């Protein structure tokens, strides 16, 4: 059942993070795909309709963008919903994400530098929030998408308290 080591049950493996994200996140990913790739596709189609001479050259891009849009609409959100999980313990933040490329990350609470609950316009519409936990490393941040607004804020407050207790400059 584990996403990363199901072929090798006989070696140490990590368990999944305990908590799942909101189901609404699927809608969020779909809307996001529509906004990005849907608009691009619309622009290409409009260009192809209005501008006769380039129509030949636009056929391949339109086909490609359509395929990407379909994958992003019909496959990615469900796949991501199955993969994305999170958990915050006393000592660490643990999250898994991705679809084609999956990843799990663990950051110790003692190294946390900032904790933000970020809400973009689409997320506000759906009452969702992204919890962003950064460490001193510029690649070390953990983004947990698709949390309920209040859940994310509670988690952020809790983490901020934990992080403040740790000493040192967290590098």
């Amino acid at each position, binding site marked *: 059942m584990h996403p*990363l*080591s199901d*072929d*090798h*049950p*006989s*070696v*140490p*493996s*990590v*368990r999944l*993070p305990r908590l799942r994200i909101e189901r609404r996140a699927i809608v969020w990913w779909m809307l996001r795909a529509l906004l990005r790739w849907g608009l691009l596709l619309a622009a290409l189609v409009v260009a192809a309709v209005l501008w006769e001479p380039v129509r030949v050259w636009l056929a391949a891009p339109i086909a490609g963008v359509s395929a990407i849009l379909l994958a992003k609409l019909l496959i990615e959100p469900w796949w991501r919903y199955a993969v994305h999980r999170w*958990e915050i*313990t006393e*000592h*660490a933040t*643990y999250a898994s994400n*991705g679809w*084609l*490329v*999956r*990843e*799990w*990350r*663990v*950051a*110790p609470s003692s*190294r946390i530098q900032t904790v933000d609950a970020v809400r973009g316009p689409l997320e506000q519409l759906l009452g969702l929030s992204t919890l962003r936990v950064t*460490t*001193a*490393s*510029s*690649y*070390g*941040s*953990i983004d947990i998408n698709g949390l309920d607004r209040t859940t994310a804020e509670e988690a952020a407050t809790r983490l901020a308290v934990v992080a403040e207790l740790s000493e040192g*400059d*967290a*590098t």
Partner: protein
Amino acid sequence: MSTQRSPGPTPAADGEWRRLSVRVIWVDLVQSVVSLLPAVVAIAVFQVEVSFGALWPLIAVAAWGVIGAIVDAVRWLFTSYRVSESDIERRTGVFVRRRRSVRRDRIRSVDTSAKLRHRLAGLRVVAIGAGQQTSAGEAAFLLDALTRTDAERLRRELIREGAAAQGAAVQGAAVQGAAVQGAAVQGAAVQRAAVQLTAAERDLADSGRGDESGPAAAASVPPRGSQARGSADTEVFATLRPWWVVYNLFSIWAYLMAAGLLWGAFWLASSFGMNLLDVATSLADWDELGPLGTIVIALVFAGFVGAVGMGVNFLVSYWRFELARVRSSDGSFLRTRRGLLSTREVNRDEARMRGLTISEPLLWRWMGMADTNVITTGLGIWDLNEPTAILPRGPKSVAREVGARVLGVPSPLEVDLPRHPRAALRRRLWWATATAGVVVALVALPVATGAAPVWVLWAALGVWPVCLAAAVVAYRALGHAIVGDYLIVRGGLMSRATSALRRDAVSTIAVRQSILQRRLGLSTVAAMTAAGWSAYEARDVAAPDAVSFAARAAPGLIDEFVDPEPASAAA
């Protein structure tokens, strides 16, 4: 604030605004005069016609020099800095006033450097690095320039280096022969050191808290056999071997340097009425050689000029290079000193060091060429002056030896790293094939329609074996291990980098798997840290080993998430 009054030139009590050295102005004046000289010489000695058309390069040089000097003088007028107990502050700017303050406990490095003009005037540029984002690409704080004694004193104040650096300070004072000023400086240093020591409440074991004479003896510049003490606390790891110049002749930058040198020579000569193009044309019968011969000769000649330029540049900038570990009462520093005309000294706090990287460029691996960089927080990796490089480009044997002395014995960089699984090679071969396939597909249509000649297709097909060879090289570079307190990762195609990173510096662990990696049973383990490149990856580890490697790379971090049932139970 009570600090509005004009800052005095001599340093005084804590919190006083201080100015940069007034000698900056003199340097500016000299620079103006020197930049006017070529034009004067051209007119007076070579009788060049006084017109804009003939003299414009020299006029440009003069304008650049004079305007630069004026701007610099204005900057001097409007810049001041002060050191308080908790911060160092600087204000600068004419139209846009900028004020920057850095907390002293965040200061991670204090570099001094000097261009030739600074050295002649006894000045030093002080760059203070804090833990700012490395991507910003600038030192947190630049003071351009202080007198040598002031710079040395400021450095000591900020990083509280003990007796080890005193030798240099004594020398500086002696050279300048300013006994009175020196004494005043020392007095101020003593005072500040005392404040600091009581404020910090540490390092007092041997110097007597609260007793003025105790800190004075430890932190100021009394004769007290400081040279002998200095040598006892300084451990020299490497000095320049002139033959290292061989490693620095060949680089892609050689051609750029050649272009610059030849261009400069051409313009300089044309200002004095010589046309180097005519000279070059008369040297050989280029028509007979044909275009190919001409190009080959030009490339060889430019390469030669560039290599000589690179060699001279290397020797000038690394002359009297020395890498040493300097111990003091509160920690040790890795210090490099180098430079013939411009000198540069960088002190890297070892408490901030997280490891070491040795990278070997692919094209020169046969001659054992290696770059050595420390992994440390607070030093920019994109800085052109490469503050993280503790050795110039040189032989790998020296890099390894220095690595062993910096990291401790047994050196984590010496271990043999086991090969990664064959699947990692297969993954690279697939990617190589895909890359070659894309190239072929891109040229296929133009060739099929006759828009491009057929040999383009063969050339595209020729990309495939090159990609496959690159895949094998990249696979053979892979390696990872845990040795003592360090995790070791090795990888990279064009430059094979072996990095040893302290395990306690790992701030985030990430394990990644793409679809292809899942099929092949591979994972990439990334250890994130605040230092150096921020992420150090062991690519394509066998998936079963990934979790145990991750667990050992960051001790205790992921233990609570590892499946509770023992590994053997499922087997």
